[in-house]
């Protein structure tokens, strides 16, 4: 069982079977299957089934590929409520950005980093922009 960060804590993961986008769209019982998105794939067909998806994984083939950030925001903006998990080669210094885009779970390649990575989630306590966890931008919240 892999250990992952989920909702700010380290947990053992018992996830459903993971399918790629194509397989998932064709699957008979997709409501019980996770889907993994790769950079460059089109989100539109997935958005049509937003209420059926139990778990979305977004793969980062390298941490420099920022397309996954937009996937997350778009999924959340369109109302996806389920677990959204980053997998692949993202780094802990990106955790604040990732979680603000809507990721609530992080599966690192190297599990020994998990404890330290938790700390990075608290790098910032205030932000200018609206985000998944704070729908009001700072300018609507300033005292």
């Amino acid at each position, binding site marked *: 069982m892999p250990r992952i960060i989920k909702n700010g804590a380290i947990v053992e993961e018992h996830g459903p079977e993971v399918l790629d986008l194509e397989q998932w769209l064709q699957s008979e019982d997709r409501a019980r299957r996770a889907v993994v998105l790769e*950079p460059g794939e089109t989100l539109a067909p997935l958005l049509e089934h937003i209420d059926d998806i139990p778990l979305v994984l977004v793969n980062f083939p390298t*941490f*420099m*590929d*920022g*397309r996954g*950030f*937009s996937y997350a*925001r*778009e999924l959340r*903006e*369109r109302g996806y409520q389920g677990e959204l998990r980053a997998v692949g080669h993202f*780094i802990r*210094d*990106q955790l*604040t*950005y*990732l979680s*603000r*885009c809507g990721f609530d779970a992080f599966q690192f390649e190297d599990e020994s980093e998990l404890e330290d990575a938790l700390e990075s989630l608290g*790098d*910032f*306590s*205030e*932000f*200018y*922009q*609206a*985000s998944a966890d704070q*729908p*009001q*931008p*700072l*300018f*609507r919240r*300033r005292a």
Partner: protein
Amino acid sequence: MYVYDEYDQKIVDERVAQYRDQTQRFLDGELSEEQFLPLRLQNGLYVQRLAPMLRVAVPYGLMNTRQLRKIAQLSRDFDKGYVHISTRQNIQFNWPQLGEVPDILAELASVQMHAIQTSGNCIRNTTTDQFAGVATDELEDPRPWCEIIRQWSTLHPEFAFLPRKFKIAVCGSRQDRAAIHSHDIGVEVVHNAAGETGFRVVVGGGLGRTPVIGVEICDFLPAEHLLTYLEAILRVYNQHGRRDNKYKARIKILVKAMGIEAFREAVEHEWAPIKNGPSTLTGEEIERARSFFTAPDYASLDASAAQNTLQAQCQNDPIFANWVKRNTREHRVAGYRIVTISLKATGYAPGDVTDKQLELVADLADRYSFGEIRTTHQQNLVLADVEQAALYELWQSLQKAGLATANIGYLTDVICCPGGDYCSLANAKSIPVAEAIQARFDDMDYVYDLGPLELNISGCMNACGHHHIGHIGILGVDKKGQEFYQVSLGGNQGKDTSIGKILGPSFRQEDMPQVMDKLLTTYVELRQAGETFLDTYRRVGIDPFKERVYAQDH
């Protein structure tokens, strides 16, 4: 100018703490070189040829004297006592120690400054007109919009790992002094028939290896939609910009590949669901941003008396008169002038300024210009609000510090990147070329006679010296390991932007002054009454210049 409240301060302070930890982890070997690279870049730290270079953000080129004095002090404490003004209005330290950068950033944070996103594949410092708020041809002050964009783009969670860097410029005047057509996004403040504020948005401009002039994507964007619209453009770019080849990764390539119609459609598609969402600007926020850029407490001056005094001073002192003519310009308010301080004295690297000079400028700004200073993309400094009656005293002080070179807008006011003397990306040195040309054309009467002339020099294709949009552009190229220089003519910034055309085969460094001489002689011979270099070039084309420069000597 904008003043931080506790939120702004907290964000900058937390960024410093985060970066301190990242630096420590890098030094401890926990972060690899590859992982640390984008983290330090997004805090402005490059590793250069000889030492790191730290680029400090000067949001839209505006600073107060406390900040300027802090920069001077830091240059003394952590560097060699001078800094460089970049062509994007930022300030660069050339020799800081990597381990000391967190301390420098903490010092900067104490005066409401930072180095966030001055480098890396993210949204960079937003630039604007250096005469914002005081120019006579201004429709509306662009700086409130720049500040709104600054806040939105700072640590934006979605756009920190873009395919490539991303630059936004804003202009609010008839003449475009912000080069909005050479930016990834250019924003022009406009009014509609009802007198409401909005923006004309231009996308896909840029210099670099493939210079492209930006094209209009929206002719009137109502002001409240600014951020959601920018967000939609960035999202299309983040998803579809090329990531396989860094020379094809800028938004200009995407816009060209899709065509502006399809690109606009994609943006509209992304925009629809977020338009009118929470990021829509409120009237209060727009007013709040504007409230930081109101006019200072101008004295009501007797303009004609001031004019008479100035005229008398000019008659007595022709050197002063010349400086007034070349380095000051008309101000929106009667009795005031805008002063540009040239950082282009012959014998000094263009845009370099020492700690002592910075401190002097800070004192002068406090005394004569409401305590504010601006940096320009031509790598000079501006005191925007000087009473005419104070010009003579100001000039005397500047003269003593070597800051009264009267060459703004002329040949020797060279725009020049740091080039091969500092930059590890360079193909060739740029500063020695600038200096050799300044030295060759030391007869100022001749230089003035040449009229307004922009000479822009870059040490490589990255085009930090904006060579494509110089009337004369010089680009350092590598020819079998040797430094050579390619010349282009006819570039121009402003609303009628044009990209310079390459003259022909490149030249050796020692030939450059001679080449310039031939180009300028050709212009002088061909010009008609009142024509600038650019006018003549546009009328006669490149051939006469080519013939002269490449003619065989008999």
